């Protein structure tokens, strides 16, 4: 992939170009937390260093949105303004890859997701300050993006190595030719040194959780493991782990009257809820909490890989932070691996 160098001073010019392109969201660091905010609210860019506390998912798949109005003849879908995300961590880019499979593949494409993906420009970055809860490396991912971004930034002395990952990214470079300088051997070796040292840090803290083989093979033998029941004990069924998850896709459609018409709304839903899969006759494939708890692990690490070839857990660790019951996915899986 093609790489360039942009100095910190020149980078400011890129920011104003991005602002003119459409809406601009930046991952911005405040104290020790990073959050995704409209650039207008922040006014500057500080290298985030690690994923934001919220996932990027809501920018592509809203918590609540109108998806249809009926009865009407017209098919017109809402047009969406172009937008850029500056500051997507590797795990969050992986999450978008997962959602792309769900919403854009198969017989039907989700038109709302598709429109947002088409209008989005994703600028990733290499992690430099991983959190204690980060475990991307045991989910087949590195703490630096390697694909599925438009541009990627690697912080080095005085500026950034910028890697181009798509046609859209190329267009940004074309439009801002004067600030993109050739990346030298020195720039690249600086980047690679930082990458390996951050990777080593995440590997070290994840070492005790490293699986003995492919997750799918481990889970194939673990369905009846007592670890599920042991670990679900402190779960209060709040579904925080699912709503904060960057790859959770579940939703519910519901209808409302709107004047002389009706509208259909789509709202995030969660498989942790008791009636999520219950059918009218009363049958429920997962009536017990432990079954719903386990379903999440199987969906991410067994069912999703069977369908798409990679895990739908990105190792971002948000569910660990969000859980009021202090359930740590890594520890649950470690117990499952052990037996």
């Amino acid at each position, binding site marked *: 992939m093609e790489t360039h160098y942009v100095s910190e001073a020149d980078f400011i010019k890129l920011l104003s170009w991005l602002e003119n392109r459409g809406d601009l969201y930046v991952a911005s660091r405040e104290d020790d937390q990073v959050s995704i905010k409209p650039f207008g609210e922040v006014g500057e860019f500080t290298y985030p260093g690690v994923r934001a506390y919220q996932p990027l998912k809501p920018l592509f798949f809203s918590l609540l949105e109108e998806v249809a109005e009926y009865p009407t003849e017209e098919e017109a879908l809402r047009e969406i303004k172009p937008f850029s995300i500056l500051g997507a961590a590797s795990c969050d880019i992986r999450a978008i890859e997962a959602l792309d499979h769900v919403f854009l593949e198969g017989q039907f494409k*989700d038109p709302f997701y598709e429109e947002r993906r088409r209008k989005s420009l994703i600028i990733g970055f290499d992690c430099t300050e991983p959190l204690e809860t980060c475990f991307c490396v045991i989910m087949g991912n590195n703490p630096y993006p390697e694909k599925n971004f438009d541009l990627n930034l690697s912080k080095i002395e005085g500026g950034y190595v910028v890697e181009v990952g798509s046609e859209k990214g190329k267009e940004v470079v074309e439009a801002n030719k004067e600030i993109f300088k050739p990346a030298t051997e020195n720039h690249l070796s600086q980047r690679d040194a930082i990458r390996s040292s951050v990777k080593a840090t995440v590997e070290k803290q994840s070492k005790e959780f490293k699986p003995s083989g492919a997750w799918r093979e481990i889970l194939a033998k673990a369905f009846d493991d007592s670890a599920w029941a042991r670990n679900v004990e402190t779960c209060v069924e709040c579904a925080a782990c699912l709503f904060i998850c960057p790859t959770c896709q579940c939703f519910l459609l519901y209808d409302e009257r709107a004047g002389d018409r009706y509208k259909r709304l789509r709202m995030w839903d969660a498989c942790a809820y008791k009636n999520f899969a219950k059918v009218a*006759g009363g049958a429920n494939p997962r009536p017990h909490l432990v079954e719903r708890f386990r379903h999440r692990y199987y969906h991410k690490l067994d069912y999703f890989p069977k369908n798409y070839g990679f895990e739908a857990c990105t190792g971002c660790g948000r569910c660990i932070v969000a859980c009021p019951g202090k359930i740590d996915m890594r520890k649950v899986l470690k117990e499952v691996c052990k037996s």
Partner: protein
Amino acid sequence: MQVVKNIYKPVTADILEVIDETPTIKTFVVRPRQPIGFQAGEFMEVTVPGVGEAPFTPSSSPNVKETIDFTIMKVGRVTEAIHRMRKGDTVGVRGPLGKGYPLDAWKGKEICIVGGGVGGAPLRALFLALTERLDDFKKILYCYGARTPKDIVYKKQIMEEWPKIDPKKVEIRLTVDEGDETWKGNVGVVTTVVRDLGLDLASSVAVVCGPPIMMKFATFKLLELGYPESSIYLSMEKNMSCGVGKCGHCMLGEYMVCQDGPVLTYDLIKDKPGIWD
């Protein structure tokens, strides 16, 4: 093929007729204002305006293009609202969705259909699709069970018309869990008529649709009779919202039943958690 349109928006359909089938089941004959074709076993999401949607499989022949029949049992919020609707009212229809029965792959075979209750709905669409090209199939055996004689759907068709289609090739077997003074046929659950099939299992397929408990025992019975797992086609009824493979509600193992099914062969799903629930 990718369909670029709003996959969440229903097409308006006029209710032309409402037929009382049983005390809790009605058939709604609707005419969509835009043509919607379907294959037997594919389903659609039917909208009651302002109330919501639920999945139903058309029960009419896929060869009838103008209108679609839905046979609906009253069990909850959406189905109660549908049951209150009359001729002249409008509903929304979204579909066709999912994969139906692979009729072409069944050419030259003998087909054993086992159904119960409102499961007779998709099976009528299938039965009609099969018998309307009867030359393609060797034999069709239709076994159907209802709770009582009053609960038999499409009674007149099943009891009077269907047995006359081609008595050499088409056999109808009916049973009820509980008879009454008018009932002269078999009494017992549907599996009691799934025996002495007179079919060559090696070149036969079986199709099952009905309440979960019936599906389970019918499947076990067919296995016991010697049907290979991959020749038993089940219409899986799972909770559904989107119907287009996105919302996660219908998952059965790695399968999105709304897209990978609803018709799935037993070998694919036999080990999936919650298969019968």
